[in-house]
């Protein structure tokens, strides 16, 4: 490692390297310790269970490999999600870690992901008069269709590539937004 990084980050960076050749389940704390050049105990101190490691690794991958392009409008949101799905396709091993981490029982008090807040903010601007329940229904649907889980399900369960997954995503977004009365939308 050329740069000086703190131990938790060094562990995650090494785990990401190992992910290129094996699955997360096959990365033992022993192998990870050897890769970083520290003791297994140090890893346990940082990440007491594999669920902690998975959650931290997913966050780190998210920040370094899959940064979310900022969006304000619905069309920017679509473009940002397309870009992410294409990035997932280019690094599937990393994307599956994200999908898995978002499914496990939370290890800590976790904050909603940045994309969740961004979708809510987008709807506040795009549909300012929409009632609260419908707003949450829309936000939750958009969030779930833009997730790594959607990408993973369509890739594994339907054998689709990023272009087809983007198409399925766009159609799902269309059906959700079509439910809102026209008058809800802010003048564009």
């Amino acid at each position, binding site marked *: 490692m050329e740069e000086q990084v703190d131990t938790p980050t060094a562990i995650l960076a090494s785990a990401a390297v190992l992910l290129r050749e094996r699955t997360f389940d096959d990365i033992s704390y022993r192998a990870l310790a050897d890769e970083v050049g520290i003791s297994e105990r140090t890893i346990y101190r940082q990440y007491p269970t594999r669920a902690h490691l998975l959650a931290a690794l997913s966050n780190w991958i998210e920040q370094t490999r899959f940064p979310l392009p900022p969006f304000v409008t619905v069309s920017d949101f679509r473009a940002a999600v397309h870009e992410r799905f294409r990035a997932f396709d280019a690094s599937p091993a990393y994307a599956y870690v994200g999908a898995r981490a978002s499914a496990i029982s939370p290890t800590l008090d976790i904050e*909603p992901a940045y994309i969740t807040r961004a979708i809510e903010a987008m709807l506040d601007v795009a549909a300012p008069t929409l009632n609260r329940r419908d707003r949450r229904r829309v936000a*939750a649907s958009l969030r779930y269709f833009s997730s790594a889980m959607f990408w993973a399900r369509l890739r*594994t*369960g339907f054998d689709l590539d990023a272009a087809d997954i983007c198409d399925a995503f766009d*159609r*799902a977004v269309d059906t959700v937004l079509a439910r809102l009365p026209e008058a809800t939308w802010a003048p564009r």
Partner: protein
Amino acid sequence: MTSPTGTQVAILAAYAELIEELGSDDVSNRVIARRAGIAERTVFRNYPTRVDLLLATAAWIEATIFAREESHSIFDIPLAIRDAMHRYDERPELAHVVAETAMRGVSGAAPSPGRAQLERLLDAEVPSLDPAHRRAVIAALSHLDSVGTWVTYRREFGMDRRDIADAAAWAAEAVLDSIRDRVSP
């Protein structure tokens, strides 16, 4: 999936119980064997690795504890989704295990076990869809009719079981809007 044998069911049920008591990380084969009333080597013989055991357990949970009533129409799917969300909410630890094993890629569980049934219903009732539209409807409904919905809505929006069931069924109705008036007579 072939049905598990009697011994296997004892192992899977014991593991599922222990997951609810201790979490999936901290359960050794010895503890599972003791709970199931069998020898530890029997666990190994049936499930050589931890991942084998976990995948089999997730499949068993999905087929038994989270089993759903069969829908007879694609337009009944939102109702099935609503029921499923309530069931996941009653067994949160098991719900997380099933959700996670479906997100492991090729080495994991099939992420859309209900796909074939959805296709059957859709083809019988709305046979005129173009392939891309058909695929999008099936994909969206499979995604919504899964434990991932419960996990995401709870975690990202702090919804309780009523709100999750409502929002998930609402989204499924939205997907069905595009085919509601296209049923073959």
